[in-house]
């Protein structure tokens, strides 16, 4: 696997990276068929500085305990499968390098918070996607484009919503939000980000509906600007900024 490639194959490594060292991982396990409560379990893994937390999880699963369960696919931060809480912060395991963590202490890994825990690092994503679907995250444009061609859009108009098109629906933001943790009813930053992506798209004709949806009790007004979402977003989306822009648009009554 590319992920377990030893550092010696890798270019650009400073020397310290070539010697492996032992890292302790504390992982919050939960087997729904056995456990009543989640429990912490520790694993020692040989790692290189340039390895990622996902590599460690793979090493544990493949060499020590096959029952360790987590989602992953692309292994380079574009599919959004492996958001988890690493040392108390939401991160993608495949984008978190060992060298960026303090390995003198154990590394804590647990599932993201606020969504129902299913098994080990897996949570039920359905409530998350349900919120996403509710903001009508698709282009609504009733007029046919001229001449059966593309709808025109200036470079500046395209730039307006560029940031929020990057979302990979990993839920790192929503599950880092203290307001979302409270009762799980809040739409959450990810849904707002995806609404923003269409509200500010010059081709879209139904920004009003989305603004109405987010003007709801569980909508943008529940955001308390705690910025956890922006800190957590692996795509570097300025989530709180997007939420602020939606709030402004609601107050203006138009995008």
């Amino acid at each position, binding site marked *: 696997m590319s992920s377990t490639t030893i550092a010696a194959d890798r270019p650009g490594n400073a020397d310290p990276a070539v010697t492996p060292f032992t890292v302790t991982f504390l992982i919050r396990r939960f087997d729904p068929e056995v456990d009543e409560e989640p429990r912490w379990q520790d694993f020692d893994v040989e790692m290189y500085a340039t390895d990622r937390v996902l590599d460690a999880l793979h090493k544990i699963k493949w060499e020590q305990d096959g029952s360790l369960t987590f989602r992953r696919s692309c292994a380079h931060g574009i599919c959004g499968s492996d958001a988890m809480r690493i040392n108390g912060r939401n991160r993608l395991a495949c984008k978190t390098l060992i060298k960026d963590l303090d390995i003198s202490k154990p590394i804590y890994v647990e599932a993201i918070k606020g969504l129902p825990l299913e098994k080990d690092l897996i949570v039920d994503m359905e409530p998350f996607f349900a919120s996403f679907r509710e903001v009508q995250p698709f282009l609504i444009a009733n007029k046919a484009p001229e001449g059966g061609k593309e709808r025109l859009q200036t470079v500046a108009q395209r730039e307006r919503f560029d940031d929020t098109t990057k979302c990979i629906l990993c839920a790192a933001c929503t599950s*880092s939000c203290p307001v979302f943790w409270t009762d799980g009813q809040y739409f959450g930053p990810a849904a707002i980000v995806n609404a923003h992506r269409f509200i500010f798209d010059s081709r879209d004709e139904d920004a009003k509906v989305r603004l109405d949806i987010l003007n709801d009790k569980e909508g943008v007004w529940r955001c308390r600007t*705690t910025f956890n979402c922006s800190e957590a977003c692996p795509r570097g989306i300025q989530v709180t900024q997007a939420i602020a822009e939606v709030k402004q648009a609601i107050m203006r009554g138009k995008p």
Partner: protein
Amino acid sequence: MPQQSAGTLTAAKKTTTSRRPAGTLYRGREGMWSWVLHRITGVAIFFFLLVHILDTALIRVSPEAYNVVIGTYQTPLMGLGEVALVGAIVFHAFNGLRIILIDFWAGGVKHQKLMFYVVIALWVITMLAFTPRHLINVFSH
């Protein structure tokens, strides 16, 4: 179909699924901790305000009654409590302004961390000015 087959599932499904993970404390940054403080101070001020209105209302009852109650505010212990209260109000007020700037000033989101440290700095300055003055008043009588 045989019992151990993949198609059959053990019954306990629903009872064990939906549980909210607790786990470690989330390590948020400036934004989260400022909110935690804002929330705590807001609640504290609210409860103080309830009491404060009631005690002030005693001026309608009689000067004596009012003076008795206000007298308790002038004890050294309460004096320290007042420092805490003013500290809470000052933080809540400055951080409230920070939140308002985040919401309405275009550069607010970008500079929220800086503004948090400004809030802390202003809070320290205000408290350095207020505390000695107040404690002298409390302890010199």
